[in-house]
């Protein structure tokens, strides 16, 4: 049974909420497909957690939109915002549906999965260990894209998610990295995060 979080009004700019909903919902689609195609339960659990986050954001956004509308004109202007927010919510629900499949063992036929691996890019999910040379460095310093051909699309830190991290964002011990790239690069990132490999050169 789900535990329901009590919802409390917070004055957060509608734009901030909408950007976060849009970014999270798009990340969720990627994570969800990946979890299904590579039969990865951890990614599926991430998706379900993000879905709860998006649900809460949707409610906060609704409240803030209601407060922002002073008259009929405002209401009409804000309708578009509200429609995009419901769309993002719907997308996140769709991603969660995929995650349920994975967690309930309703898999994708293994042969189809094999065939899919040839056409789809793989996502990797790695915990940064204490010994990892990634720990304490910014993405700009690491230049992972040019060195090993992977792109960090999200960093999970406890319950917080940094979506599309920028060059200045630092990787810390215990972070979970979600990365996209060629299989060889993804494997290499895994070794670096684990601390098995400590070489990162041009």
């Amino acid at each position, binding site marked *: 049974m789900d535990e329901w979080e009590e919802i409390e009004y917070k004055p957060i700019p*509608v*734009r901030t909420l*909408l*950007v976060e909903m*849009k970014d999270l919902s*798009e990340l969720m*689609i990627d994570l*969800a*497909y990946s979890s*299904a195609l590579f039969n990865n339960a951890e990614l599926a659990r991430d998706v379900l957690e993000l879905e709860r986050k998006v649900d809460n954001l949707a409610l906060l956004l609704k409240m803030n939109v209601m407060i922002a509308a002073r008259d009929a004109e405002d209401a*009409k*202007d*804000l*309708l*578009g*915002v509200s*429609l*995009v927010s*419901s*769309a*993002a919510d*719907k*997308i996140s*629900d*769709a*991603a969660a*549906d*995929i995650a349920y*499949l994975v967690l309930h*063992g*309703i*898999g*994708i*036929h*293994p*042969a*189809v999965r094999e*065939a*899919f691996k040839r*056409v*789809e890019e793989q996502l990797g999910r790695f915990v940064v260990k204490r010994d990892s040379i990634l720990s304490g460095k910014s993405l700009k310093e690491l230049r992972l894209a040019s060195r090993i051909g992977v792109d960090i699309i999200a960093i999970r830190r406890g319950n917080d998610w940094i979506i599309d991290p920028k060059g200045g964002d630092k990787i810390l011990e215990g972070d979970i990295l979600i990365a996209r790239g060629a299989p060889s690069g993804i494997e290499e990132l895994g070794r670096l995060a684990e601390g098995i490999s400590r070489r990162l050169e041009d």
Partner: protein
Amino acid sequence: MDEKHFQKIVDALVELKDTSELMLDLAYSSIILNSPELAREVQELEEHIDDLHTKFELLVLSSGFGPEESRDFLGLIRLGVVTEEIADAAAKMGEIVLRGLKPHPILRLAVEEAEETVTSAKVSEKSILNGKTIKEARIADETGMWILAIKRGKKWIRPKPTTRIKAGDILIASGYAEGEDDFKKLVSGRQS
């Protein structure tokens, strides 16, 4: 089940997934550009994806699987349903522009990445892009803009590195505003 049938299922699922994601990109772009034309494309793709979805389901159901495989095939059917849900969400967003709601500044700022813009241009016969694949064309290196979608006649294509650009294609691209001019020159084949 034979290899060929598998490949057909995979191809159909990839097309469903690509189409639904293309619809999302186009729906967001329709809001940024306040473009009823793009929004209408999203609605047309919505009908197209319904057909694709039916074909996909028939393909999966005609795989001749035994009871012990039914869970695996259920997973495929459900994935198809999800692409349809994403397509519906995109179509709903497309409605914003079609219903004449002018995109609120908050919305444009939120949908548009900080300094990014969306633009479109038609590939001319003399453009150096004509006949090149997306990978060969190196449009991102040249202009800082990347291709979101290609319109060829009535068909929308979600670009892959191997997709070949042809004269007459309309390229929808996104990127930093500074690159827009270079992009239009490259696509139209205009000198300077």
